[in-house]
């Protein structure tokens, strides 16, 4: 396949939804919030202390807003076991195409999150992701690669839109490592 054909192929994924809406494995919950704030060293009491949260503008325990993306992450087993070919989403297909062309490493480069409101215990998120853009091949400090930008909209299972995210990764050819 020529470089032009390859670029046309990966660009054909622009604008496509990454499969059906994804329901988070679990609703917003205190244990996952606790793991997060302990890791971050975040001592804001609105995340763990019911009384302090009730006395704040939030009125109740809330999740850290920057945790929004974490609720929808697929988890360990799905990370270890890529989906069968027939179950692949357009994003899985695009990732496989880039991997097969040698752009096998990935690094996140940009993230913009917008929050309509903070999430409460029990909110159950549903995310809808679409592929916004695939760049031409760029030379970067890490190696040659393609930037892939996705847009994610987050809603509750009741259908209330609660936030959105624009996320950009670089799929790049790793420099040859010496053993």
């Amino acid at each position, binding site marked *: 396949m020529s470089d032009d054909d390859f670029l046309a192929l990966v660009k054909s994924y622009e604008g496509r939804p990454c499969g059906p809406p994804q329901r988070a494995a679990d609703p917003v919950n205190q244990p996952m919030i606790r793991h997060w704030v302990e890791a971050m060293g975040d001592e804001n009491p609105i995340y763990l202390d019911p009384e302090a949260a009730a006395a704040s503008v939030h009125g109740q325990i809330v999740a850290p807003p920057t945790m929004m993306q974490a609720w929808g992450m697929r988890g360990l087993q799905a990370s*270890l076991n890529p989906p069968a070919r027939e179950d692949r989403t357009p994003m899985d297909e695009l990732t496989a195409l880039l991997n097969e062309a040698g752009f096998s*490493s990935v690094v996140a*480069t940009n993230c*913009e999150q917008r*929050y309509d409101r903070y999430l409460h215990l029990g909110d159950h998120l549903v995310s809808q992701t679409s592929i916004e853009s695939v760049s031409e091949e760029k030379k970067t400090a890490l190696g040659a690669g393609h930037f892939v930008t996705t847009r994610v909209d987050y809603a509750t299972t009741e259908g209330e839109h609660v936030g959105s995210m624009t996320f950009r990764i670089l799929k790049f050819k790793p420099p040859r490592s010496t053993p």
Partner: protein
Amino acid sequence: MSAAGAATSPIRAGRIALADRLPELAIPITRTLIVAGAIASRDYQDVHHNAVLAVQRGSKDIFMNILTTNGLVGRYVTDWAGPDAIITRVAIRLGAPNYPDDTMVFSGEVTGAEKRDGRDHLTVAVRGANSLGDHVVGTVELNVPTC
């Protein structure tokens, strides 16, 4: 950016002005932080916990994932702004990776402030720099009680 003019933490309503600087915050980048942040964010990409595979993939070592960077940026701003702050937007761009045994120092400056609906709506420019350069540069929008 120095810590000169640093506000006490958390800020009190009505004391914020354009060009106010947030107190600096130094975050030791340990393996434990990188792995704990990756797992707390359900990010099992091997480059965030497996040094051998990270090197095979062209990295110097394991490195912090972007979800942890987001979490730390949010924490940095609310450490200063307090529990009555409401963050509405976080936009970040990553540069130099956060590898283990480094230190990232956050600095920030108020670049926008307007009163609306009884709250002060602020824009804060945030920078997190390690020994390699800027790990993260970003913008946080939030609102806090006005007086």
